[in-house]
């Protein structure tokens, strides 16, 4: 007899972060790239709840999420492939921390090696050997613990390797999901399919929920199978000020407002207060974003 029913994974964002993200996790990898598909509502909620992470993997193209996590001291260590704002400029908090010194340990790395490390983690490989070439850069010199040499058992040549990475927590944005966590990307998947298959606890943020029947009708569209999601949280405009592919573009005005504000320590604190710590929820956050006509940017996906 079917004495139980299949459980929904849908949770309120506060509840999901409170229940599933430990107060101190070993490591975090945030999905999306540059100013796209970054699950900002989840990141803000983690900061609001004071969650801390040993290591933040900032690759392949981290931006606002990483800058905020560094600025709030939520991370002890950043392994850095790329952290910036692409055409909008450099990451102001990261800059200040690196240029003026900070408690945070920054490990110089590259995006190719970090993706290979993530892939190795997903496969259960202890490490990933790198293609030749990295020895011609300064990376192994400044990060000798990250890049290590070994002997190729087939050629007896020397290669570099990086240790497997398996993030304890991954925050991922899908445009849609069903209540069981089957996530659908309506545009680029970036690194998020691999990340979602690899990470320990995956929290999935979505623009909207769809019926499971819809998922079964087009299974080739499913970007992340449900069993990988620990929880699904629905948040309107949850990637703001980054884009959610097909739903809305990034908000360059707000991103520039951040870059301007965060160029000083005091400015960063007041941005943080206004947009991260004070808002009681996403609606409150949205009210605080000035001059944004939310109705006008509602992209609806079919």
């Amino acid at each position, binding site marked *: 007899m079917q004495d139980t029913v299949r459980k929904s994974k849908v949770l309120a964002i506060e509840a999901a972060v409170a229940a599933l993200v430990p107060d101190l996790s070993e490591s975090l990898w945030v999905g999306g*790239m540059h100013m*796209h598909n970054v699950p900002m509502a989840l990141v803000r909620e983690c900061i609001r709840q004071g969650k801390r992470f040993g290591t933040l993997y900032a*690759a392949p*193209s981290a931006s606002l999420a990483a800058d905020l996590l560094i600025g709030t001291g939520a991370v002890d260590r950043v392994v850095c492939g790329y952290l*910036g704002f692409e055409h909008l400029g450099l990451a102001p908090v990261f800059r200040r921390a*690196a240029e003026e010194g900070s408690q945070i340990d920054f490990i110089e790395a590259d995006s190719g090696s970090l993706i290979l490390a993530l892939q190795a983690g997903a496969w259960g490989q202890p490490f990933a050997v790198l293609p030749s070439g990295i020895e011609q850069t300064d990376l192994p010199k400044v990060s000798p613990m990250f890049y290590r040499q070994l002997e190729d058992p087939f050629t007896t040549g020397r290669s570099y390797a990086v240790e497997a990475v398996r993030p304890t927590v991954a925050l991922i944005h899908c445009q849609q999901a069903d209540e069981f966590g089957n996530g659908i990307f309506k545009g680029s998947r970036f690194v998020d399919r691999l990340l979602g298959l690899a990470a320990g606890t995956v929290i999935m943020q979505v623009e909207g929920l769809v019926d499971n029947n819809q998922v079964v009708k087009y299974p080739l569209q499913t970007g992340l199978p449900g069993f990988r999601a620990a929880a699904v949280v629905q948040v309107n405009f949850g990637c703001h000020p980054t884009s959610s592919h097909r739903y809305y573009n990034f*908000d360059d005005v707000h991103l520039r407002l951040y870059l301007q504000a965060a160029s000083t320590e005091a400015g960063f604190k007041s941005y943080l207060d206004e947009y991260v710590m004070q808002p009681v929820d996403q609606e409150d956050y949205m009210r605080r974003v000035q001059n944004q006509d939310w109705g006008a940017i509602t992209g609806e996906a079919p």
Partner: protein
Amino acid sequence: MSDDYKPVLRAGSDPLVFFKYPGADGDGDVARGHIMATVMSHALKDGEVVVMGANSLLPLAAARLAQLTHAPNLTLIAGASGGVNTLVEPLAPSSGDYANLLAEAVLDFPEVLMLQMGGGTDVFFAGGLQIDKRGNCNLAYTGRSPGSVDLRGPGSAGLPWAHRSGRTILYVTTHTTPTFVETVDFVSLPGHKAGGKWREKGGPELVVTPLCVMDFDEGGLLRLVSLHPGVELEEVVENTGFDLVLPSGAVPSTLFPSAEELRYLRELDPDALLVAVV
């Protein structure tokens, strides 16, 4: 991509993102972005697979222009978005933009890197905080050591694998002495070795700036190829932090985009991002 997609439009958006650049509509002026994109386009050969990273307005326009003119069998991979042969309709400011998915295929980003690192591409476009006379490129930081950083850049991203991705074309949107230095403080992208080019295939081949075009001589040193229209040699020399190898005789002028090339560039770029970018 369905037909109903609309990008965000909001008051206060920057021209680089959504609006026409004031005065950029006319056919009169040719911006340096147009010249740079055209030079980069000419450097691409038919049939090549071209890949680009962040901040790729110029290479994106260049690769699409090449497809529309002399290289119809060229393949273009639009960076972070993973879009393959995006139609660039229109040119969008971020490499990860959804606009780049008006394309023939979409790769996951690990697949883009896999193709680059595995030798599945022919041309890679890159830029940096610093470029030195051997084509070493730095996207990490300037300063004496990790503990003494003057300017913190974003990080080395995919640059360490440039030579595996094929011929590398470097580009910058400012040509200044802080950018063109004798020796980079950090090697993110390896250039040519002292005493000669360090590899037959792959590695930096061309450098395109708002002022000029440069390549590398047989010794692997940066060499001036041509000056953009209206640029004096003096301006380049003053803004380059080392002794640039000069061609023997008069320095040629960079080929001006043809009327057809300009028309294509303006069609691809209704928001005139190429005018604003440099």
